[in-house]
């Protein structure tokens, strides 16, 4: 084990795969000479050269589509899209081609590509630069979407994504890049499609992914200290496929749940989780499943408005307390 930042863990995974497999190459805006907008690819151009670390013009639709095509011939492109907001320019190529080629041609062609892209608000970047639209991709059969919340998973899931024969979108998060944690020294990929219990508990289940899964852990620790509440945290880490069994098993044990998400509430990822709990743990539930999500507005620039619109640890704590109050009244 070595303590690494989320940023370094992603970098390590890219470097490992570039060294291991000649067919892996990186492309994206400013990833080479500029070393990446968020410096994930720092040093890789020097080490692997411009053939393997390819700077692109600002042309998301073009280079993402080109990655699909290169993958169809067996290369393993890893595309960096500067933030998930700009992936919308490539939405067509991702949804209509990356996710379709395998099925539409009867399984004859594979698309072993990766799209790495960070989401996240909270940096006062305004309405178009603060969105969490991972749902758009998690909605689409044929896509795989993973959302690591700590450095160990960042490395292990990116390794898995690059080795996978399907298009995988790796959702990173601006607020997580500097977070640190223990990362195994080996290069074992994590299984895509499985959730992880990051804290065991008996009183309530917190379900989250990406940044909010890290927040959920902090919330659980605070609640243990202040309220003596023993929360279990389920880190989804894979949004498609979704590991419903792990979520349901946890709620069958705790009998209540709060879902934390950075995206919008209506039709969001949390809605799918809540529906899953309703399907799989209805008879075990002692309170409605609460969701804590971003306010449904184009995110304003002004700090007080932005802060109010984004889900916080305090919002989560309030939701947990209210849920447990409802449980107590029922029992």
């Amino acid at each position, binding site marked *: 084990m070595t303590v690494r930042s989320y940023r370094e863990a992603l970098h390590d995974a890219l470097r490992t795969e570039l060294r291991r497999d000649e067919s892996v190459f990186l492309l994206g*805006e*400013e990833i080479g*000479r*500029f070393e990446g*907008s968020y410096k994930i690819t720092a040093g890789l151009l020097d080490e692997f050269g411009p053939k393997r670390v390819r*700077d692109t*013009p*600002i*042309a998301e*639709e*073009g280079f993402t589509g080109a990655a699909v095509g290169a993958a169809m011939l067996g290369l393993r492109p890893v595309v960096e899209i500067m933030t998930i*907001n*700009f992936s919308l*320019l490539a939405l067509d190529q991702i949804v209509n081609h990356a996710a379709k080629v395998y099925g539409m041609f009867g399984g004859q062609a594979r698309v072993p590509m990766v799209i790495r892209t960070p989401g996240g608000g909270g*940096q*006062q*970047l*305004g*309405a*178009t*630069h603060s969105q969490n639209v991972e749902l758009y991709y998690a909605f689409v059969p044929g896509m795989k979407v993973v959302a690591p919340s700590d450095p160990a998973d960042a490395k292990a899931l990116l390794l898995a994504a690059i080795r996978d024969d399907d298009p995988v979108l790796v959702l990173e998060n601006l607020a997580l890049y500097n977070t640190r944690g223990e990362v195994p020294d080996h290069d074992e990929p994590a299984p895509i499609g499985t959730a992880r219990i990051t804290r065991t508990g008996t009183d309530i289940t917190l379900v989250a992914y990406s940044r909010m899964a890290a927040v959920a852990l902090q919330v659980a620790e605070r609640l243990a200290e202040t309220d003596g509440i023993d929360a279990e945290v389920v880190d989804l880490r894979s949004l498609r496929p979704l590991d419903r069994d792990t979520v349901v098993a946890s709620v069958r044990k705790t009998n209540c749940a709060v879902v934390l998400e950075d995206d919008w*509430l*209506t039709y969001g990822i949390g809605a799918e989780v809540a529906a899953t709990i309703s399907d799989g743990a209805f008879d075990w539930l002692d309170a*409605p499943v*609460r*969701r*804590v*999500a*971003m*306010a*449904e*507005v*184009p995110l*304003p*620039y*002004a*700090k*007080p*408005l932005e802060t*109010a*619109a*984004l*889900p*916080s640890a*305090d*919002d*989560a704590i*309030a*939701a947990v307390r*209210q849920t447990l*109050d*409802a449980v107590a*009244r029922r029992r």
Partner: protein
Amino acid sequence: MPTSTSAPRRRRRPPTNPAADDAQLLAFYRQMVLVRRFEERAARAYTEARIGGYCHLNLGEEATVAGLAAALDPTDYLFATYREHGYALARGIAPERVMAELYGRTDGVSGGWGGSMHMFDADTRFMGGYGIVGGQVPLATGAALAIEYRGGGEAVVCLLGDGTTNIGAFHESLNLAALWHLPIVYVIVNNGLGMGTTVEQASAEPELHRRAAAYRMDSARVDGNDPTAVYDAVRTALAGARAGRPYLLETVSGRLKGHSVVDPAKYRSRAEAAALAAADPVAAYAVRLHGAGLLTDELIAEIDADATATVAAAADFAEHSPHPDVSTLFDHTYATPVPNDARRLPGEPLFPVPANGVPA
């Protein structure tokens, strides 16, 4: 149709008396100095954490700002990029309101909702800065369509960066404009870089104005460090646009600092940075006007003091303008009120359970 670097059908500026011309030359200088001081003040406020988010400055672009803005009629529309503070000022928006937007306050041009990248002002027909690269280009094309549709004499000027010419929407828009004979001038502000990538590294045709040839559109490249050259070129382009011939103009200038305030621009060599500083358009223009006898040392100092005072007042105003109240968070989701709009803060439940626990 070949591109018209040689500018064959340039419309002569209406004959004006020399005094008025001198006034315009001085007005360019005042404008350039105001933009320079404003941007320096913005950079300072950013490092003092009074401004957040991304903050892209027009440092090095002042001559283009001044020449372009002066060439527009008041009824023309301007679409900008996220690098738009200077254009907002030059379009006539009060510096107080531009600065207040940077501070995210209620008196800001966008009420604190947009920030540095998203200024908008209907009164001056400043149709917005846009943070998505290329996002403004189809919108500006549509605005030109609206003018043509209604039959008006106005035109649209759409700013974009050199790097933005590689976005698909740029090409789609130029084709539409040419096909529909729209009254629009696309202005590529070529500052040599898109973040850290040079024009040559990103564009297979680095003479960007030549891209117009693919759409049989008139085009030209002009020295963006010379406000008079920019002014003349924009007037020429607008004359064509108003007659239904859209135009692609490329202005060439430098970006004196990083891509945004937080970018140390380490990818640029010392020599490059020094060369840029030596070609500083504000200083060069001052020398030129000085040589022509239009500027004296006293006047230079006076103009500078004026700009500094204006900018200080703007910062003071911004500092004292109120923050938007959280109760206004849901005010701008829909223009037409609609039942069941989700007006809920993150911690609020969909269906609140009453305190006594008994469902209603």
